[in-house]
């Protein structure tokens, strides 16, 4: 049985300035091409983490890669699975039913249009009725943080944040470190007696 817990990225609201570089980096990392300048970006910017900005708090929110992922459990198309300790949505299986979107307790899932080579991917058969007759409909998929599974350097948002406000949490390591820090604090207080 695999007991390794899933990692996830979380932001520090004390450091976040709400600049949205993380959203841009995320969107860029998930393109099927290398986009360096704004002029290279021909499709909508589609991040998988979302800046929350109110008077009380400013920080991005993203998927927690839950161990008992409610999104995966409610998905009727079996489109969400755990692969290599990441909860991943298979866009080819997703039917866009939106159930995962409303189930996620963090609001971490969005419904996003699908593009390939900068062109919209159209649905196989479903067409929409318009004044001009039947027109093709663009395909959509549920979309959420995938911990940059295809990226050798890991999460793009963590790397790009100018304030270093995003952290990749490896839960068991974090836990261990906290215990060690706690023990060291006690040790230090003993020395001082």
């Amino acid at each position, binding site marked *: 049985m695999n007991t390794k817990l899933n990692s996830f990225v979380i932001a520090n609201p004390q450091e976040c300035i709400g600049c*949205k570089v993380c*959203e841009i980096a995320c969107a860029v990392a998930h393109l099927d091409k290398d986009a360096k300048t704004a*002029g290279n970006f021909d499709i909508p910017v589609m991040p998988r983490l979302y800046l929350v900005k109110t008077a009380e708090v400013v920080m991005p929110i993203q998927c927690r890669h839950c161990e008992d992922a409610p999104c995966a459990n409610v998905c009727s198309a079996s489109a969400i699975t755990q692969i290599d300790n990441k909860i991943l949505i298979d866009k080819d299986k997703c039917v866009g039913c939106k159930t995962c979107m409303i189930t996620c307790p963090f609001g971490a899932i969005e419904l996003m249009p699908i593009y390939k080579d900068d062109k919209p991917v159209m649905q196989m058969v479903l067409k929409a009725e318009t004044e001009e007759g039947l027109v093709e409909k663009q395909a959509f998929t549920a979309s959420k943080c995938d911990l940059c599974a295809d990226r050798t350097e890991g999460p793009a948002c963590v790397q*790009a944040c100018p304030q270093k406000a995003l952290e990749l949490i490896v839960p068991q390591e974090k836990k261990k470190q906290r215990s060690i820090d706690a023990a060291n604090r006690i040790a230090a207080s003993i020395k001082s007696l």
Partner: protein
Amino acid sequence: MKFSENRIYIDQELCTGCKRCSQVCPVDAIEGKQGEPQSVNTDRCVLCGQCIQICSAYASAFDQDIAPREQKLSERKLLPSVKEPLFAAYNEGKAPEVKAALADKELYKMVQCAPAVRVAIAEEFELPLGSLSPGKLAAALRMLGFNSIYDTNFTADLTIMEEGNELIQRLENNGVLPMFTSCCPAWVKYVEQEYPELIPHLSSCKSPMQMAGAMFKTYGAQVAGIDAEKIYSAAVMPCTCKSFEAARPEMNSSGYRDVDAVITTRELAHLIKDAGINFADLPDESFDAPLGTYSGAGNIFCATGGVTEAALRTAYEVIAKEPIPNVDLEFVRGTDGVRTAVVGAGDIELKIAIVSGLKNAVSVLDSIKAGKTDLHFVEVMTCPGGCINGGGQPKLLLPADRAVASEYRSASTYIHDSSIEYRKSHDNPEIKKLYNNYLGKPLGDKSHHLLHTKYTARR
């Protein structure tokens, strides 16, 4: 060909108040509390556009709480075909205006491109950062329908002739020293508003862009054999301040507005895409003579230290009466904010300061005001690294890529310089012809009228 207000805006709907823009603003022109939408103080703003380059508050295509994209494109005077994401900080565009002019058969359209354009525009077409593409640039401009594909690099050479001689004149006649370069319009505006007492230090030379505009509608009209009234003078610049410069009331020495419209490197890419031109597949073409022929010295204007190096390649020869031993002056290159150098030329020891990034000019200016320097020449570029990183250059999406792009654009600048037959402005055969056939001599009457200008205290 009217001028709308030239200024930098911050879209109140998009700005998240992160204040990264105010951190890079060299004149503290961005006002607002952290977390609230910022605004630009137009009295202080020098239109350098560094805020535009750093802004990451983009408009989401899925946000229904903001004005629709078509409305924003229209407000920003961007072509409706533009697909790229829109950000909070922006400048008003001129591409639709230029597109209309290109379609007007009555006009004779002349265009010039700054050196920085050819080391960056390819990036907008997914070619590597800093790709050198002067050939494709010329081909694209021709395909768009410009009649004469001229070049700012030619007038950069011309600027060296005029400014080099102006420096020598000041040296010989106890003129105001140090002399400041005057090709960066944001720097000029800054001196006019913050240090008006130092205005006499500014070279009276116009910028290469403005010199080209004046030349187009005089010498250029002659060469083309057409009425100057029919000439539409366009410029492609890496700079968001050049449009402001072109609109300065005094920039009409040709008898007409010397530069009718300025678009940025990004806007030229928009026009090229709008016309369905596949930039990456274009063959290499040349710029047109006479006003498109340039030396390597003219090309290096876009990197910090480039104007100085170009000036030295010529001034050394005039003063020492022999060619400079080494054309490549590594000691003025680099990226440090303030660099100084001493150059022995003949009997003189020229003391030079090069400032990269307007914030770094303050200490130098204060020393000059206090009479504490013995400098002869100061080059100031508002944008850190020079025009290659100007407010109108292709906008890097990720912060880490900005340094990479700067490095490669700079490298391409000097590679292009090394590959050109003529390395010094005064060796440019078209420059020699221009003086012989038209201007007479540097700082002569015609030069004075067409190529030199005055400044206005703004305080």
